[in-house]
């Protein structure tokens, strides 16, 4: 039988003994030595990155190459560069490692291509001074009663009220030009909300699957990505969507949505891609990273990771640019006026 004295001691011991020990009762954080940090990143990418097969990347060889560059005494900056160089091989704009002093990236998907975009020209010759700002969109009625819509980042939210205002502006328009060149993405919900304003019937625009295990082929089943039919009266006239190589991620998905609408047509250059949703992670030294962990394909089976092709390949010519004309906008205007 436990005596009262022992029991009182036990209560006091348990209370005082456990107090403030919550963290101590979990295993300690892993060390932040270069090898530990490297392996944490390399293994997570090996297990959860979604495009090894499609990009023909041998991650084992890449890991061996950069593992040999590790040194127990290397500085944080040099370790960062090793990890950044390793991740560069994934050729993916959705792959970054972030430290307080830098963020790695691979921007070859647009840096190796013509810009096909001149913001100053658009402001001076198409938007003018009296454009309307509807939420994140700048809109202007061009000559010939065509509504020009400039949306540079899907990170900026669009509301139902914005969509209603936008549709109100389209009532007398013979066509709409949606310019998502240099739109690096943001929230897919904003892209979907905008696309829905031009969608009469619910439309499947792509299929997606997410990694569900460490195996190369461990994915969920493919499921449909759809644009919901607009609850109201959508705009069903001609819609021209302008893209370039910096149209990326959610904007890349928006381009694919537009491709799926029967009255929409894409102009400019193909998009930069970004078909995988990035998953985020943290390393033992506190640096964070992200990489694609899903795949998306068009209804025809083409991976959106490699960009969405346009219907009409049009380049912004230097001569037009100098003359104050955007070749791609003019091509869209010509199509709408046909």
């Amino acid at each position, binding site marked *: 039988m436990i005596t009262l004295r022992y029991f*009182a001691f036990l*209560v006091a011991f*348990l209370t005082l003994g456990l*107090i403030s020990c*919550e*963290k101590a009762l979990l295993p300690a954080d892993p060390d932040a030595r270069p090898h530990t940090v490297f392996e944490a990143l390399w293994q997570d990418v090996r297990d959860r990155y979604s495009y090894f097969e499609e990009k023909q990347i041998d991650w084992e060889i890449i890991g061996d190459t950069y593992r040999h560059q590790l040194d127990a005494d290397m500085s944080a900056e040099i370790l960062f560069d090793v990890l950044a160089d390793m991740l560069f091989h994934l050729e993916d704009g959705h792959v970054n490692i972030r430290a307080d002093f830098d963020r790695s990236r691979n921007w070859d998907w647009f840096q190796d291509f013509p810009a096909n975009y001149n913001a100053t020209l658009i402001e001076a010759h198409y938007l003018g001074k009296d454009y309307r700002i509807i939420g994140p969109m700048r809109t202007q009625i061009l000559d010939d009663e065509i509504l020009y819509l400039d949306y540079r980042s899907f990170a900026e939210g669009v509301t139902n009220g914005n969509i209603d205002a936008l549709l109100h502006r389209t009532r007398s328009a013979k066509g709409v030009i949606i310019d998502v060149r240099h739109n690096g993405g943001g929230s897919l919900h904003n892209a979907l909300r905008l696309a829905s304003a031009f969608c009469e019937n619910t439309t499947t625009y792509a299929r997606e699957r*997410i990694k569900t295990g460490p195996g190369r082929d461990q994915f969920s089943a493919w*499921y449909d990505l759809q644009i919901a039919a607009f609850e109201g009266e959508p705009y069903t006239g001609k819609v021209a969507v302008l893209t370039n190589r910096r149209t990326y991620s959610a904007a890349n998905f928006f381009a694919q949505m537009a491709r799926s609408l029967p009255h929409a047509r894409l102009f400019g250059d193909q998009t930069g891609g970004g078909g995988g949703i990035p*998953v985020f992670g*943290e390393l033992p030294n506190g640096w964070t990273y992200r990489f694609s962990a899903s795949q998306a394909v068009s209804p025809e089976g083409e991976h959106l990771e490699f960009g969405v092709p346009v219907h009409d390949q049009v380049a912004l010519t230097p001569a037009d640019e100098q003359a104050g004309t955007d070749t791609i906008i003019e091509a869209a205007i010509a199509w709408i006026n046909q």
Partner: protein
Amino acid sequence: MAWIPDFKSLCCKLVAGLLISSTPVIETTGQIPTSHTLAVSFGIQRSAERDAGFSPLVYAGTMPAISVHYYAQRQKTRDEVHLFASGGRLSNTFGAEMRFINAGIFTYKFYHKTHPERALQWGWSNQNTFSMRNFSAANNFSPRADMHTSFGPAAAYRRTLPGRFNRIDLSVVAHFQVIGFMIVSDYVNAFPSGFTDRNRSGIGALWHSANLMYPGKDWNWGIWPRATYRLSSGNSLSLSYRYDLLILRDAHRSSGSRGQYLFTLNMAL
């Protein structure tokens, strides 16, 4: 391996039966309660959480905690129901933050034959607990979450101090749980595995998300030392420290070490 779904189905039904039969809420065995007590607690919770689905690092911090308790003393049993909730910001050693929410219901049933004053009592415990971790650095597949319902043995030991301290009761309640169900965030997706395939929905998705907790893989234990001062009105005040350690292993391992410092007002009904 066609037998695996059937095996899972069978095990799930068995465990579900155990959990339902263990739940002491609204006892209908014909025992008339000899006393009821309702209690409200306020305090703080110190949490240390690790979710390998995002980070190998522990996120720790202090947050407000609140709980409501109900006790029913019967001729042969004592039932306890505890509803608790806490939430706040945790951070790792590098200052990165995570918003954490933890809530659930905990039940105990202790057996004492016909001697409620018996110091040591054995019984069963059951909990249904939900935790959500929203990492500020994760823009997609976030927040990650887990919900588990588990079952296991429990013990309580109570003594009253002698002499002029005889208004003070000391008690310790402890439990250990290793079987049950859990529904946790998927390998990549924040949603449970059954919902990663969006072709499923509702009950079907929930069913495919449920996984078993079993010995050697998942476990939870807790201990709750308490000092209670009985007032002459029949009510009482308690000071307690409730500690709970939870390990869940599914697509990723998640663990939580939580301690609540509670001040409780107990009201006899």
